[in-house]
């Protein structure tokens, strides 16, 4: 899908701005009413925390053009600091209320960002990415060495319920933790959005676009990156602190490369070019890790494939797809193309169902062969020993993707038409000015 990817700004109708933020606040407030089981509430808390992480990550990636492979270092170290403070507080050593623990995490994250960021941000591009990778591996390897701080294999655990309850709030029940998280989430998201509209935020964008030019308008590029890195580390640490409260345990994997990779993957999936992209990515991350992994063993594979396809065909992520279609709608062209979308969706579904069936069967053979040859898949029972099951799935794949190709051509045709229409319309409006 070709597009001159436009970078939308919310045009300041103040009404629209209040509406959107109000909606966000309302959703945050009412979500646990809709998903009220303890499990769901805990998931919502996780989503809130991950939203903060992904947004802070996108401060580096989407706004600053800095690809970091080690962002989890700052969330993780923030979490550790928060956990140690929590333990100190519950032992009466430090008078820190539970509600401020995430903030302590933030300060922790910021501290390490100041420390590591200085050397990390001296370089840019691929070198920067490699340094972040190196530091990530370094910290993870160190976690096994300094068991005093990292707690070795068992990690550090804590208790978030201690002392006298304030107004009846003990932070014991998950719902209370959720509302604390929601408050932090709202404030952090608002702050990070505000950042994009400040001089530093805009210059950060300029650094992303053209670091050399920035020097020639009077700014020290390195300095800009360093400050942005510290701010991102601060917010990352807050999210780490929330995680520490939510799980009441912190283990070494919170600083691991796998965690960093997940943040990267999902921020990118959600979309690095628009502010709300990482929010979508965060929601998907929690859903994938918590729910998808229950559904199928192959979830990492699917994830990897989705990521690959995203990078190749929609590098702006889901948010860019949404915005592109909103743009179509704004010009009244959406109705011309939704038929093609349905075609694409159905055929893709067919083909993918075939692939998924094959994958599930293979996994079944691998892992559960002792349980007999039958696999449940989408309500069907597939017998892995019958060759016609395999053949059937293969046919499904072939037909599905064959039809998909046809649908895709039609889609491209429709899309191209609409794009042309829009270009003409834009020109027309320009002339009219």
């Amino acid at each position, binding site marked *: 899908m070709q597009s001159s990817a436009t970078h939308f700004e919310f045009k300041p109708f103040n009404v629209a701005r209040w509406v959107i933020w109000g909606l966000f606040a309302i959703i945050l407030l009412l979500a646990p009413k809709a998903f009220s089981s303890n499990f769901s509430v805990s998931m919502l808390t996780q989503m809130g925390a991950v939203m903060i992480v992904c947004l802070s990550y996108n401060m580096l*990636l989407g706004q600053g*053009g800095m*690809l970091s492979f080690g962002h989890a270092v700052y969330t993780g170290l923030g979490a550790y600091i928060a956990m140690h403070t929590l333990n100190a507080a519950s032992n009466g050593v430090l008078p820190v209320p539970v509600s401020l623990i995430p903030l302590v995490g933030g300060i922790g994250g910021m501290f390490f960002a100041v420390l590591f960021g200085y*050397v990390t941000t*001296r*370089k840019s*591009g*691929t*070198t920067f*990415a*490699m*340094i972040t*990778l*190196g*530091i990530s*591996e*370094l910290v993870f*390897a*160190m976690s*096994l*060495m*300094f*068991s*005093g701080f990292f707690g070795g294999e068992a990690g550090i655990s804590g208790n978030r319920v201690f002392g006298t309850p304030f107004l009846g709030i003990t932070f014991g029940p998950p719902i209370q933790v959720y509302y604390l998280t929601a408050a932090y989430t709202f404030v952090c998201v608002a702050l990070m959005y505000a950042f994009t509209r400040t001089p530093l935020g805009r210059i950060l964008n300029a650094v992303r676009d053209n670091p050399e030019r920035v020097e020639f308008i009077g700014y020290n590029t390195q300095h800009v990156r360093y400050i942005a890195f510290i701010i991102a580390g601060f917010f990352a640490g807050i999210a780490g602190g929330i995680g520490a409260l939510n799980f009441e345990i912190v283990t070494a994997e919170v600083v691991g490369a796998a965690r960093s*990779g997940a943040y*990267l*993957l999902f921020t*990118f999936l959600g979309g690095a070019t628009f502010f709300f992209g990482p929010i979508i990515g965060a929601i998907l991350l929690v859903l994938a890790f918590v729910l998808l992994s229950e559904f199928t063993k*192959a979830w*990492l*594979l699917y*994830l*990897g*494939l989705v*990521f*690959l396809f995203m*990078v*190749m065909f929609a*590098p702006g992520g889901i948010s860019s797809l949404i915005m592109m279609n909103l743009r179509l709608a704004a010009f009244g062209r959406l109705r011309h193309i939704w038929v093609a979308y349905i075609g694409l969706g159905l055929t893709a579904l067919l083909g993918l169902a075939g692939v998924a069936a094959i*994958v599930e069967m*293979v*996994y079944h053979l*691998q892992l559960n062969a002792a349980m007999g040859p039958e696999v449940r898949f989408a309500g069907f029972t597939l017998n892995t020993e019958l060759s016609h099951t395999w053949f059937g799935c293969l046919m499904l794949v072939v037909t599905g993707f064959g039809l998909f190709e046809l649908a895709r051509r039609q889609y491209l045709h429709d899309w191209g038409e609409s794009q042309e229409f829009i270009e003409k319309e834009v020109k027309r409006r320009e002339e009219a000015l």
Partner: protein
Amino acid sequence: MLSSGLTLIFSMMGVLNFAHASFYMIGAYIGFTLNSVLGFWTALLLAPVLAGLLGAFFEKFCLRRVHKFGHVPELLITFGLSYVVLEIVQLVWGRTAVEFQPPMELQGPAFTLIQNSLSGLSLVWGAASPELCQAADAAVRVVCSPFPATRGFMMLVAMSMMLGLWLLLTKTRVGLVIQAALTHPEMVESLGHNVPRVFMSVFGVGTALAGLAGVIGGSTFVTEPAMAATVGSVIFVVVVVGGMGSLAGAFLASLLIGIVQTFAVALDYSVLSLLQNIGISVGAASQDNALLKLTISQVAPILPYLFLVLILIFRPRGLLGKRET
């Protein structure tokens, strides 16, 4: 070996291939399968070819498409590929390690180093007999270090690979074209060379080399899903420390890191014991200090990464690198 393939790809295409270790793994697993069917030496020939073909395929359909989006998406797509390969390998071959035995010719030691406190150092081809290794007198210390044939073979292949690559790049016409295509692809294309095909073959060769390393490494060490991860980070360090784009640098760096790690594990000193040896007495509290108590062997795993970070800070070109990204 791995590093030379990665260096090749990076210096030629400016693409840092995260999935390089994944092709190593692919080579190992394909080699394993072929080994049981066709024997080791055939597997040694075929598996890299297959790995190379897969690499070329990936380049043509995926990497090339992403190239126009910039460096970040390129990195990301190789990153995504590493995930996918890991999962597919686990899908096809299972999540536990598989038995990949080296062939008869390579089993056993190539030679044995005998360190006798009385008669000094001596060398015996093949395995040393037990009598030579045991001293009759308890006061005499004899240490027999067998040097496995598989390692020897690996070193041989690694050397010849480096040599071959270097010759290819600097002496042949193909090498010239590749070097030119790196910095001035349009020019080279207008001179009549099929630049995309060149890139594809370079990538393919790089991954084939990784596959070759995989066959050898997999049979020498272990063939399991985690092998890409364990090896992956170290080869990155090697390539970056050696200097991205320099084969000689990669060689030097891998030697350096290998030596340092071996010695670090063998040495069991810590800062504390060092101080004690010098005669400085330290208070009881400091004796317990976690940092000082760290022995070098405990620190060993992080040494490569420490190297990496330090090099990137002070000499981002690497030891012998020619270009800084």
